[in-house]
């Protein structure tokens, strides 16, 4: 049996007296797509940030392919797309991608930036400052930024928020393509329909704890029912 890619045991995170995570266990295998659902404040973003190495747990352990999450080897394998775009508005899309490439010490940052821009179909707007971009376009650059170093694990925090239907569909196809090429994805979302289409592993969180976990493909209605039931039963 191969070792799980991401392994969390008893993860706790306290902010003062608030327990954002209260003892969470997670086992994620390579190539899986995990959907993290739950009400606001359930601890989903906190969990994602800890996996990304942006925050340290107060208690418990987390390993990414055997290494602790905040170590450099782990950070190199992870791409993080958060609520905010992580982009500098004063710089162009291309400059932002080149900078991100340099942060990850990518071999050819300029070439990689051009490649990502053309993959996204944004080659012609690459020179424009990001401050002028719409939410959908900025989101696409943010995702390109997350992929600049070719990570095998991708963490996405509510990527569908604020996207119109066409942009959401495009994003879903993008994520599906990534899943099929063997990337491991963790998706925090309120969009149950997209989650059902993309994920085979679902975790529902409430108040820092797991209230439901399931593996296997799901119909959107089934997932919706599970989600609602789990939240009603939650403490």
């Amino acid at each position, binding site marked *: 049996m191969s070792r799980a890619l991401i392994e969390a045991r008893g993860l706790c995170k*306290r*902010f003062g*007296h608030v*327990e954002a995570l209260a003892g969470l266990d997670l086992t994620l295998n390579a190539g899986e797509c995990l959907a993290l659902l739950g009400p606001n404040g359930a601890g989903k973003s906190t969990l994602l940030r800890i996996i990304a190495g942006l925050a340290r747990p*107060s208690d418990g352990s987390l390993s990414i392919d055997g290494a602790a999450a905040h170590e450099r080897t782990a950070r190199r394998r992870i791409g993080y797309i958060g609520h905010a775009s992580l982009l500098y508005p004063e710089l162009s899309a291309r400059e932002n991608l080149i900078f991100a490439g340099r942060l990850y010490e990518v071999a050819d940052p300029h070439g990689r930036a051009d490649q990502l821009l053309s993959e996204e179909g944004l080659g012609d707007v690459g020179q424009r400052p990001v401050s002028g971009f719409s939410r959908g376009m900025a989101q696409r650059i943010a995702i390109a930024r997350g992929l600049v170093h070719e990570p095998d694990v991708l963490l996405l925090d509510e990527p569908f928020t604020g996207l119109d239907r066409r942009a959401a569909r495009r994003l879903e196809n993008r994520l599906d393509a990534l899943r099929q090429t063997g990337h491991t994805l963790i998706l925090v979302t309120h969009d149950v329909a997209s989650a059902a289409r993309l994920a085979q592993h679902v975790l529902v969180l409430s108040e820092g704890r797991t209230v439901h976990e399931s593996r296997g493909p799901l119909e959107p209605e089934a997932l919706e029912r599970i989600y609602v039931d789990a939240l009603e039963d939650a403490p």
Partner: protein
Amino acid sequence: MLRGSGAVLAVMLVTSSWLVIQAPLDAMQGVIQKILYVHVPCAFASYAGFFLTALGSGLYLWKREDRYDRLALAGAEVGVVFCTLTLVSGPIWAKGTWGQWWVWDPRLTVTLLLWFLYLAYLLLRSFTEGSERTARFAAVYGLMGSLAIPLNYYAIELFGGSAMHPDNLERGSLGQGMGLPFLMSVLTGLVAVWYLVVARLDLENLRLQSAARLGGYPRT
């Protein structure tokens, strides 16, 4: 621990006060010289407080246990009080003996800087949100501050103003009969720090317990 240290402090306060009153008057300065028995212990107490803050800060960053952060905070709160007393009692003595309220002497300036460091430390704690982040930032500043002290002292030694502050910490530099009261008052000062820090830590523990109970989260 609180009652024990309180009892010791009470005894020492009484003993020191009696000894100080009994102590002979200084030939040159007269009765105002007795401020020495308050001023010097306060100075030592403020250094002790800062030492505890630096110690707590270092231990917190190493072990990440909240109790070390509480120690650092207690050390700072107690230390700043004694530092203020030092800065108040000093000029009173100075005006009485040198005729000036203040000079830019190394020891005075370093004590003033220590006071500013304390204040900055405490203000940093008030203005940071989130107790874990507060503890982390304060600990880092506490350590940076403790580096600044020796650098400051050296700088002012080299370039500062006149060295008017009595530099006599050798034996026999005090007059006859002043050694014992002096020693006792210094020890009293340090015991006072001990007592106050323990009291502050107790207070903090009570505060956390009641907050946890009100918030409904289990106490870890």
